């Protein structure tokens, strides 16, 4: 087990340069953007001379660039991302209020897509080259090509406007003040369409990876051993093929999460979901650069953490990893 702990420590250390690189990109954007960096960080359109002075001192903007970078690093890692000018609040507080809703959407859909994509791949691999397999395969191309926001609009058109089954917007019904289980049910009801949209656009990734992986694993040596030993085909597939074939999907889970968050931001806007997507849109329209950069930084860190967690989960599934 000590090998396992060493593995976790090593992986954790390896994400540090990534976070630093993101901070570096943000820093450069602030300095390359038109206008004074102090003004951007202040979040004010026309900050007074005193405010600029104070900020320049606080963020070391009067010091050489390298020192500024150091200070920027320190602040970013402490969670100090400056002020948002449209809300006149610290960026980090704004994000904290909304990140929960975004993560709820992203993680729920990612897990659902993983499970259903894998299931569909296993199902269709039994009918290789058959009609079902072809239909699923074409469907996966089409869904992969679908803009998330457009799919969201189409689902609203069908299920909300025409059938009136689901609400078009929001996370809960503001006119009812529900509590406990009823509130939970209300959130699930509002969650349905956004999650469906995001799940559908992610399924193709898992479907295709698992499908080709099942195909490869079925030709691996140990499957031949198990067949030679007289194990039943079903058992070989369910126990040996599937567990080995699922590994690539697990590794891409973390990476796909980045794709999912992008989709989530757009889908949130369509469904007026009170998450970071909405915040991002406001920031874009009102040119609140500092808020934008803050969102980018926080999302990047979230993805790094998610990738770390999937790596650890992977190591639990695949014993070989721990010894590399």
């Amino acid at each position, binding site marked *: 087990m000590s090998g396992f702990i060493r593995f976790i420590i090593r992986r954790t250390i390896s994400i540090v*340069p*990534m976070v630093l*690189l*993101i901070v570096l*990109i943000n820093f450069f*954007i602030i300095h390359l*953007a*038109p206008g004074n960096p102090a003004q951007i960080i202040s979040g004010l359109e026309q900050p007074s001379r005193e405010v600029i002075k104070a900020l320049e001192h606080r963020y070391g903007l009067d010091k050489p660039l390298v020192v500024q970078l150091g200070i920027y690093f320190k602040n970013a890692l402490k969670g100090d991302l400056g002020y948002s000018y449209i809300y006149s609040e610290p960026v980090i507080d704004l994000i904290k209020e909304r990140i929960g809703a975004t993560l709820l959407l992203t993680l729920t859909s990612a897990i659902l897509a993983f499970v259903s994509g894998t299931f569909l791949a296993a199902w269709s691999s039994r009918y290789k080259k058959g009609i079902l397999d072809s239909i699923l395969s074409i469907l996966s*191309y*089409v869904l*992969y*090509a*679908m*803009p*998330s*926001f*457009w799919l969201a*609009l*189409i689902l*609203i*058109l069908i299920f909300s*406007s025409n059938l009136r089954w689901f609400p078009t917007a929001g996370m809960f019904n503001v006119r009812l003040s529900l509590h406990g289980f009823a509130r939970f049910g209300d959130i699930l009801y509002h969650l349905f369409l956004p999650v469906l949209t995001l799940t559908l656009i992610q399924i193709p990734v898992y479907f295709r990876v698992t499908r*080709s992986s099942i*195909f*490869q694993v079925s*030709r*691996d040596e140990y499957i031949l051993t198990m067949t030679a030993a007289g194990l039943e085909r079903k058992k070989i597939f369910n126990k040996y093929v599937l567990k080995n074939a699922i590994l690539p999907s697990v590794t891409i889970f*973390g*990476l796909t999460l*980045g*794709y999912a*968050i*992008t989709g989530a*931001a*757009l889908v949130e*806007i369509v469904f007026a979901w009170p998450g970071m997507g909405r915040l*991002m*849109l406001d*920031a*874009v*329209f009102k*040119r609140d*650069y500092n808020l*934008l*950069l803050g*969102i*980018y930084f926080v*999302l*990047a860190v979230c*993805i*790094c953490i998610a*990738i770390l967690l999937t790596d650890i989960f992977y190591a639990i599934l695949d014993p070989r990893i721990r010894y590399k």
Partner: protein
Amino acid sequence: MEVQTEVIVTRRKGKNIIKFWHNYRQSLYGLIGFVILLLFIVVAVFAPIISPYDPHAMKGEVLLSPSISHPMGTDHLGRDVFSRIVYGTRVSLSVGFIAAGLSAIIGIFIGSFSGYYGGIVDEIVDKIVDTFLMIPAFFLILIIVAIFGNSIFYIMLVIGLTTWPQNARLMRAQALSLRERTFIMVARATGESSIRILFTHIIPNGVYPVLANTALQMGGAILTEAALSFLGLGDPNLVSWGKMIYQARPYMTFAWWTVVFPGIFIVLAVVSFSFIGDGLQYAFNPKLSVKQKEVSA
């Protein structure tokens, strides 16, 4: 033995094109994608002839449902949806080709240099590539476009500048394996310069996976442009499919055609590029399934 055959492979260019097409045809998807793309190119080139109306003209009646005179209806300003879609093809295709092309060029250079020379530079490049692959490029593109301006030129440039790491990763892997091959070692031993080896051997022999990936990235670039336009960050002077959806959204519930048709065309364009990517994989690697097995073993 090995040296000879490999040199021959790099020099037999004319026959390769025929062989390439022969293998490409093996993929039904690849063929369909190719045909769709050809149609799109025709539409883009002859847009003024094909479109029945001026895409900007606000003459017709507002929000007309599809009919013979307006096959895809009109939008909230009375503009013909079909004509706008025809002109939108130009934006989507040029974004696809230019942004993904730029991404391919940058990726090929950085990847082959880093893989061939190795060492500390390679490690740093690898780390940067890793980071870029993990963090979705879309947010970075969004920020840069929001801050520095949203002309179509910027949009293409920024997409190209943020999506190269995938190509670099593929090219790097190729360079790493090629540099250990006998014919490269021979070239090095006979005193060919590194730059020459890179351009005459490594890149021509290893570029194929990047090309297949570039087809996929063209579709990706079209989706990115559409998403930017949907957020109101598209080029203000051009008609694009994403922008049409953005503008039509408030009227969607009583004029479905304004939202549905542009979206169908986005899907069609992106699917055709995915299909082409599929065909290219066959063309470059006819024994795809066999190869994949070797990699996993």
